[in-house]
């Protein structure tokens, strides 16, 4: 019998049993993504509270998945949303379609549209996953379905080494 070879294999396995655990107990423990992570979008505001988005529809035009719907409208003297002439009356991103390519962020001329590191996107109906302007705007609360007790910073060394 080839016992020595089997024994070499077993030593490897046993060695690995005593290594530091590589998995994390999600969702109690969450690993934070790297800063560049392309997650859920937000619509930014100017420091004075006006929206940065000018309803130009460039993001909708460039999106390879046709995930964005923008309907622009004119600002009036009484109702002012953004500094310029136009603002986005309707702004929706359909997360069932979005492929998180980031082309929309690249296209936005006013830096209104940004991507966050938020990756927990789930819903129970199709409508749930069409995010409206109210949900995307920067001051909208982020809804978490579970309490996170601990957050781990992104780190390549975290895993596989010991």
């Amino acid at each position, binding site marked *: 019998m080839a016992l020595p070879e089997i024994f070499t294999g077993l030593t490897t396995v046993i060695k690995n049993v005593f290594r530091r655990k*590589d998995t994390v107990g999600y969702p109690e423990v969450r690993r934070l993504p790297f800063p560049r992570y392309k997650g859920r979008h937000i619509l930014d505001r100017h420091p004075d509270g006006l929206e940065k988005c000018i309803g130009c529809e460039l993001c909708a035009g460039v999106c390879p998945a046709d995930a964005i719907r923008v309907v622009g409208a004119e600002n009036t003297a009484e109702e002012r949303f953004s500094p310029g002439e136009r603002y986005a009356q309707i702004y929706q991103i359909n997360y069932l379609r979005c492929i998180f*390519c980031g082309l929309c962020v690249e296209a936005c*001329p006013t830096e209104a549209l940004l991507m966050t590191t938020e990756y927990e996107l789930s819903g129970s109906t199709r409508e749930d996953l069409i995010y409206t302007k109210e949900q995307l705007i920067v001051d909208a609360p982020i809804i978490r379905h579970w309490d996170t007790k601990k957050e781990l910073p992104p780190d390549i060394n975290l*895993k596989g080494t010991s």
Partner: protein
Amino acid sequence: MSKTFDRLVSGIDSDGHGAYVEEHDEESNSMVINMGPVHPSTHGVLRLLLELDGETVLRCEPIIGYLHTGMEKECEDQNWRGAVTIVTRMDYLAQFANEQVYSMAVEELLGIDLPPRAVAIRCMIAELNRLSSHLVWFGTTGLDMGAMSAMFYGFREREMILDFFEMVTGLRMNNGYIIPGGVWVDLPDGWDAALEAILDVMPKRLDEYEALLNENPIFLERTSGVGVLSRDDALALGATGPIARASGVDWDLRRDMPYEGYEGVTFAVPTATSGDVYGRYRVRMAEMRETLELIRHFADNMPEGDFKNMDPKLTPPPRSELNRSMEAVIHHFKLVTQGFTVPEGETYARVESPRGELGCYIVSDGGTSPYRCHVRDPSFVNLQALGPMAQGQLIADLIATIASTDPIMGGVDR
């Protein structure tokens, strides 16, 4: 050889009838059965029509198309830049190789040069991709042969590489990072330390894998002499990559037709002569070590400078310019809404993906989107070799054979 088999295959070819029929052929006393498309060991949705005599495979016919999503056609609806997000999804474990080959083809038609840093980043990340792809192959192969821990180890190490991808490109898979003209963004701060962590730990881990499987009698029993593909068959069927190299075809595009950063770089191309599953295993394991050397080479010689071609007709101006220059605004709007145009013509570019020769044939009619974008995927071609490999062996060995061809159905069906 039963007529039932021929009838079923031709039925599928013509009208799709008889797709799920399983029949016993009285005349030749053989059984025609289906393996897959939903089968844990067929690596996706590969379906095999098998003619069996008891447990012996008389014939094996791969039937594909279950993952067909029309991606080549979809490219024609995108502009040249947007099509990157489509090609990256074809062979989803070799996403950077797809992006690279597509970008190379587009750049050739554009007739532009790349800054040296862009070239080095591309080659480095494509080599890392080879490593992560081979790690998936290692894990799934081990799993298919009952070595469960191989799966854990392979995926654990792959996770580090995916983390690196996330750090650099913002996504873990389907990155869309390599674009015509260079790469999407420059490497982030601290990339070298992160890469060092991977390069540091990987050789030790590869030693462990080899200690686990190389001499393991059960693994040897299941792989040596199994799924043999002769050198002539490999050449006749157009097999490339580790499959061809394990059959003694000493052919690697990186060395034999160097592209981008591989010119002037010397590295070994591992080959084997046995042509069996074990030979393919050894070739891929040796390739992982070579890949580590190549990654180190590209990382150590990373030039400074631009990470993409800054021609304003190709690359949108920096955001800070938009408030100052009307010209920048015009370029930005034009590039975003229409994209750049590519001169009329056609070309074929090729790279060595983890699975073999990955080619991209591009036709441009002078417009802002591809007129045709055909991808020669190595999985698709290598799958043809499954018939000769499987013939005459036991059905249990077929599992090992499929695992060793490492097919990615996303690439096969496109």
